[in-house]
């Protein structure tokens, strides 16, 4: 186990390193000149040139990358071109909001998805089952930005049950978390249904039923807990999905997280921020996957470590 862990950690580091290289090269290829952006519209050619030299933008690519990497290893993510702040400070100030949003989304996913899955499994073959499965498909196929605008319009603008975007209280969290979590809820509904069906077929359940233990007890004491484990073990994988989702969801709801930061930075080609957010997101994805991989075999012995 420790060998496996060590190997996976090593791979994780290599992956993150690879991501810095690829992202750096991609950003280098962007057809925009940060020096000119910073210098602004009234600057003289001299000012632009000065800025370019100060930022090291006229150095060869590999040297710029080397500088970036050495800074990175010391914990310095650089300074935003346009926000005039340390990237790490910007990300640190916004990360908690994104984490909160993702936590809320996970809660939504689990609550909605798992209950749908249980219900569908219990009512297997009947109308409820079909209806719920169609709903889960809809959850998976719905464009997140449309759901975001829809929820905002119906529940915030028209009904006034929730604030119209923004950040601060629990009510602010509900709609964005729902939007972000809906996609996962669809997945979890179907996985939970399968898992429940497997469990319900198992011998020990039949034994319990033949002993006369009530249906509800069997369900809640034995079936669900066993069915949930393999599902919950995979929550870490959701992080990848979330990292894409937060860009749109945070922008529509005005949620001050790193998704909003990334989107603003991309529009203004603020390269240090884009690098920083990409790295942080990728690190989160790697960690999430790693946790899922480590936890899953503990829970479900049928899954082997690779």
């Amino acid at each position, binding site marked *: 186990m420790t060998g496996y862990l060590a190997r996976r950690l090593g791979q994780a580091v290599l992956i993150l390193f690879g991501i810095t290289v690829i992202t750096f090269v991609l950003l280098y290829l*962007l*057809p*925009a*000149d940060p020096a*000119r*952006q*910073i*210098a*602004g*519209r*009234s*600057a*003289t*050619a*001299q*000012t*632009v040139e*000065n*800025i370019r030299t*100060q930022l090291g933008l006229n150095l060869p690519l590999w040297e710029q990358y080397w500088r970036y990497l050495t800074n990175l290893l010391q914990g310095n993510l650089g*300074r*935003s071109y*346009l*926000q*005039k*702040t340390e990237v790490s*400070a*910007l990300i640190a*100030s*916004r990360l908690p909001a994104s984490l909160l949003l993702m936590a809320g989304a996970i809660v939504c996913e689990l609550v909605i998805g798992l209950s749908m899955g249980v219900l569908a499994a219990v009512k297997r073959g009947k109308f409820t089952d079909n209806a719920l499965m169609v709903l889960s498909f809809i959850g998976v196929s719905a464009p997140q930005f449309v759901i975001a605008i829809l929820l905002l319009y119906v529940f915030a*603008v028209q009904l006034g049950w929730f604030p*119209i*975007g*923004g*950040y601060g209280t629990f009510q602010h969290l509900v709609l964005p978390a729902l939007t972000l979590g809906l996609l996962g809820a669809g997945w979890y509904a179907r996985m939970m249904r399968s898992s429940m069906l497997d469990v319900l077929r198992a011998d020990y359940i039949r034994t319990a039923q033949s002993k006369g233990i009530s249906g509800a007890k069997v369900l809640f004491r034995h079936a669900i807990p066993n069915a949930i484990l393999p599902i919950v073990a995979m929550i870490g994988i959701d992080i990848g999905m979330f990292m894409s989702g937060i860009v749109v969801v945070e922008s529509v709801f*005005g*949620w*001050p997280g790193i998704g*909003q*930061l990334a989107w*603003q930075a*991309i*529009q*203004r*080609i603020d390269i240090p921020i884009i690098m920083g957010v990409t790295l942080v997101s990728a690190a989160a994805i790697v960690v999430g996957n790693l946790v899922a991989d480590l936890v899953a075999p503990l829970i479900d012995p049928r899954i082997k470590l690779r």
Partner: protein
Amino acid sequence: MRNLLLNGVALATLLAAGIPATVLPAIAQDDFLAAKQGGSMIVTYKDDVSTLDPAIGYDWQNWSMIKSLFDGLMDYEPGTSTLTKDLAENYTISDDGLTYTFTLHKGVKFSNGRELTADDVKYSLERVTNPATQSPGAGFFGSIDGFAAMADGSATSLSGVTVVDPYTVAIKLSRPDATFLHVMAINFASVVPKEAVEEFGADFGKHPVGSGAFTLADWTLGQKLVFQRNPDYWKAGIPKLDTITFEIGQEPTVALLRLQSGEVDIPGDGIPPAQFLQVKDDPVYKPMIIEGGQLQTGYITINVNTPPLDKVEVRKAINMAINKARIVQIINGRALVANQPLPPSMPGYTKDYAGIPYDVEGAKKLLADAGVPDGFTTELYVYNVDPNPRIAQAIQQDLKAIGITAEIKALAQANVIEAGGAGTAPLVWSGGMGWIADFPDPSNFYGPILGCAGAGDGGWNWAKYCNEALDKDAVAADSMIDPAKAADREKAWSDIYMKVMDDAPWVPVFNEQRFTMKSDRIGGPDAIFVDPVHVPVNYDYVFAKDVQ
């Protein structure tokens, strides 16, 4: 909506005798002077405030914030584009027009307690022109003696700025410059204390220390900033408000809805289009809207180096093909059709100029005359944030009607700027990046965007238009510093822009009006909510009605 003609626009280039800052346009004098001090206000913005360092800040959000935190030698009367003295109690100009001597008010304090002196003025000017500061406004100070040496790094001090005594500073110019006093009023010329800058270094923008009406009390990155009244402000009676809270990350649609429910006072990004139509006729909200002009023009640049756009007939044809009224309709009537580069409220605007008329048949004929009767294919670059792609599509349709096929390239702002600067963009719709004057003087619309200096690689003159004769005329006009000749100077600039229209490197499309909505509980003269210089709002003169 109350229309408010900008007061004293014609006086903009007049170097008026000092008018005390507490004297306001008569229209609202009683309101303001009688108002009690106290209360607070909430303003929302969508984008983050990048910095409050006056040498660097150049955004929509921080421009007026910086004006409230710092002072400069000159300023403008609130709500107008009339120059007035600020930190300078008085000034004199030498006979040759090259040396300006400013005497400072005594007893002006920075928020760290220290008194502001002439040394601080010199320090601030040197800081902004020093390449290490990376100031986007360094170029404005080009007429000060010794600027060139500062810019190329061979000097660390501005030879043209001399501290005569602790309250007197003399600035010598290398050439007569009629815009110099405007430059002394611009944010980049704000006075900063050396010890604070050295203490915070690159983070001075997050910990600003100035002599302005407000101080920064708190800043939660990405969420809000809180300004607090400066109790020791050297101008008596200002500001009236105790605190201003700026909430960041608010979508304009959301901000407006919050205004309607009484949660915020001013949506700083204005009224979004859909809601505009709703509120402008609503009896409850209509009185909250204030309309004012802006020193802004939206235009299409035509690259004069790219055939067949290099023919002036083709460019004129393009001018004639654009249905500007329809474009104004698309943005819900919130602009005036433009026929020349300058906006109407700018001195030097040519009032009775008819412009190039909308004439589709005439345009087709001109194209035929130019040798491209069947039209041609070209590209139209545009910033990909609404409503600009829509406006670009309207332009595209207009051009199609005369046979020109314009492929739209809707890109991120930085990419459009890059293409425009590199000269690879044949047509660019300037929306979202439309020129707003840095200061209310006609020369500001020429140099960077129509002059030869801006036509180089990377310059903002995306039409790459370079008319050396006009450049000479511009320099001549800017050396007319005699206040008695102000009208002549305006005429000189008017002629320059008329000649520009003859060459048609642009299609001037519209001049956007500014619409600010404010809640009922805050008051102040209307003009300060659509202030042409303290864009968008002049915070110093706002008061709260609920503490009266």
